[in-house]
């Protein structure tokens, strides 16, 4: 069912509309409400293309995020400010699932804002149940860069209620027949997006600029003695910037920036790893280690030194010319209007890498089959990377088409990835402990070596447990009917095309 929006003759008020609709049945006129909403979309405008409206509304009761896929298929959730940037920021539920299927891992960007007022006339039955509502909307659109508001055409929106769609159609037809009325060629939000430019690519660039500013803000606060979350937030911004750069255009300028961003990721990753591992080791020392006293103090001292050294390396990198050049190059790349990536048919859609989920799955099976507690961690890490790619690929394609099987398949992949992620953490910790052992060689405070041995034993025990867990989970992943049938479906659709 198409959205039922009409352009009324100038000067049509809600009172006049209520009089007109009164001829069709009982009506209730409600008080006027403010419209304060922001339209969100993925950078490539996929939601708009599919006729989906994702709207972040400010209402007197608080903020809400509303999804509309046609007039009948709508769902909204209460959500505090600011507007969500990513699907992962949303609560579990139908809205998140639908959005995940449409935008995958893409960031949400603000496309336009609408400000105005709306007054609703409800058509009710004898029981006073709403059968349809018709609202008169007067609004202006604002682009995210805060340009002057653009007045939009007044319009009347007929909103059907599930189970009573026929009435809404009849009302829309009745109004469209009246002199001076016409059906609107586009919805209020489509018009808002069009009039304000609606270029999601420009919004995406604005978003990257925001992220660069936030990253810079966190950079100033990174301190090994301060809050470790600053470095974490810095890295979150960095990761998001890397993903978004990949979404704009694979031009030479931005791919050079991408390489430098990768370098920054590696430098900051070492310091962050040590922040995390140090905290984990303190906890293990306090809770599980039976040796106490000076041994703890010495270990803490050494790891702290090591951590500070990594932070010094990071601080040097952040103060270097290379970092300054990177920021400059990133800003330049955002200013330049590079060529848009062309799809296979010459359209504007970014060409998808020709990766096959089935191939990745087979590769994962090859890598994971027979892996046991004695195999080196690198092999598990390689499998982890393959499974991550497979998951992203499924999320972007087949899992979107088939929600039920897709959810089951993704669930089994995520379970496996949790184990492999934990295993990776243990592996990093094990390396740190080996380094510690080397550093402590020749030192003799009471219980020092015993304490390190105990930490190593605990890490080994955890590693063994995780690898045993892995074998069990891998079996169920390899025999996952949902995953197999999803891949079969993908192969089938490819063959058909």
């Amino acid at each position, binding site marked *: 069912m198409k959205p039922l929006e009409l352009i009324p003759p100038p000067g049509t008020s809600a009172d006049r509309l209520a009089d007109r609709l009164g001829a069709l049945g009982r009506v209730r006129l409600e008080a006027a409400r403010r419209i304060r909403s922001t339209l969100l979309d993925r950078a490539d405008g996929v939601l708009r293309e599919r006729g989906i409206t994702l709207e972040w509304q400010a209402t007197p009761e608080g903020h809400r995020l509303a999804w509309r896929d046609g007039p009948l298929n709508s769902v909204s959730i*209460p959500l505090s400010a600011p507007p969500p940037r990513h699907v992962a920021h949303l609560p579990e*539920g139908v809205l998140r699932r639908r959005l995940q299927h449409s935008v995958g891992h893409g960031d949400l960007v603000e496309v336009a804002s609408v400000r105005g007022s709306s007054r609703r006339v409800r058509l009710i039955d004898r029981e006073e149940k709403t059968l349809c509502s018709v609202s008169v909307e007067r609004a202006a659109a604002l682009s995210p860069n805060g340009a002057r508001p653009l007045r939009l055409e007044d319009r009347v929106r007929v909103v059907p209620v*599930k189970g009573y769609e026929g009435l809404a159609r009849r009302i829309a037809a009745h109004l469209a027949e009246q002199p001076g009325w016409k059906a609107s060629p586009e919805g209020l939000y489509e018009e808002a997006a069009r009039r304000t430019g609606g270029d999601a690519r420009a919004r995406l660039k604005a978003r990257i600029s925001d992220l660069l500013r936030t990253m810079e803000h966190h950079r100033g606060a990174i301190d090994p003695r301060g809050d470790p979350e600053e470095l974490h937030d810095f890295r979150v911004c960095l990761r998001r910037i890397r993903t978004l750069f990949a979404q704009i255009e694979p031009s030479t300028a931005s791919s050079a920036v991408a390489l430098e961003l990768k370098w920054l990721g590696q430098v900051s990753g070492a310091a962050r790893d040590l922040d995390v591992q140090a905290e984990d080791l303190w906890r293990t020392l306090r809770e599980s280690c039976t040796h106490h006293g000076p041994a703890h103090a010495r270990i803490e001292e050494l790891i702290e030194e090591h951590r500070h050294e990594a932070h010094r390396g990071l601080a040097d990198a952040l103060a270097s010319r290379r970092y300054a050049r990177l920021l400059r190059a990133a800003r330049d790349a955002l200013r330049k209007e590079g060529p848009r990536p062309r799809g296979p048919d010459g359209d504007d859609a970014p060409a998808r890498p020709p990766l096959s989920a089935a191939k990745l799955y087979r590769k994962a099976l090859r890598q994971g089959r027979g892996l046991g507690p004695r195999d080196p961690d690198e092999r598990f890490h390689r499998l982890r990377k393959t499974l991550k790619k497979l998951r992203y690929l499924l999320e972007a394609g087949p899992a979107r088409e088939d929600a039920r099987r897709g959810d089951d398949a993704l669930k089994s992949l995520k379970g496996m990835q949790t184990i492999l992620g934990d295993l990776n953490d243990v592996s990093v910790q094990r390396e740190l402990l080996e380094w510690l052992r080397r550093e402590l060689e020749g030192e003799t405070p009471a219980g020092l070596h015993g304490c390190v041995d105990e930490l190593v034993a605990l890490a080994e025990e955890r590693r063994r447990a995780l690898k045993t867990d892995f074998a069990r989970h891998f079996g169920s992943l390899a025999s996952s009917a949902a995953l197999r049938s999803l891949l079969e479906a993908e192969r089938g659709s490819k063959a058909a095309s």
Partner: protein
Amino acid sequence: MTIIAAFSIKGGVGKSTAAANLAYLAARAGKATLLFDLDPQGAASYFFRIRPKVKGGVEGLLGGEQRLQKRIKGSDFENLDLLPADLSYRHFDLAFDDMKKRRSRLRKMLSPLGAHYDFVFLDCPPNLTLLAENVFRAADALLVPLIPTPLSVRTLEQLHAFLDEDGKGPKLLPFFSMVDARKKLHRQVMDSLPRSFPEVLATRIPYLVQAEWMATQRAPINSFAPRSRLAAAFEELWAEVAARCEVRWW
């Protein structure tokens, strides 16, 4: 999708009131919710001002997802839809009895709705029939309102015995409903029952005149008297039910 059934062998204990209010609270929290009024009396449909009539009756519901979807009505509240009651629902048992896998027909009927709803609340009629067995197979949790009196407690024991025998029971979530704390008998039962049934929820729904306003206002209590004691009790009950059903909000 989580399916929660308001069920009791005994009538007049507050099943429809609980189902209507909890469905409203779930919807208000942003969960896409469907309330399925299985009781031919149609009290839950009445609360939402929806006529207790379904095209084609029971048969109309059994013809696949498309037909089921067409019979769902939108309520006046965001995220909340309703599958209204119908007098023909008294023949649910007969309809299921003629089918293969007759105990899991309801589950099969509801499973396609998983793509559209986070929660389905079932307002069940008070009896222990084939429909009830279908409810036990379909639901993830059974919300059992109990008036703190010996007769009501007896029905909980009967339900327990039945579910043990059946062996495929959902999570049982009994709670005290229509509680009058001035009555000694109510206080005694509320003190003693949790010892033998530890799963009884801590929230108690008081016996208040506000519950009757629901029938005059024809809306859930939290929508028109959100600051009332009854509304607060239902909010508390919803929080407890959601925690027991392990609802992930984030």
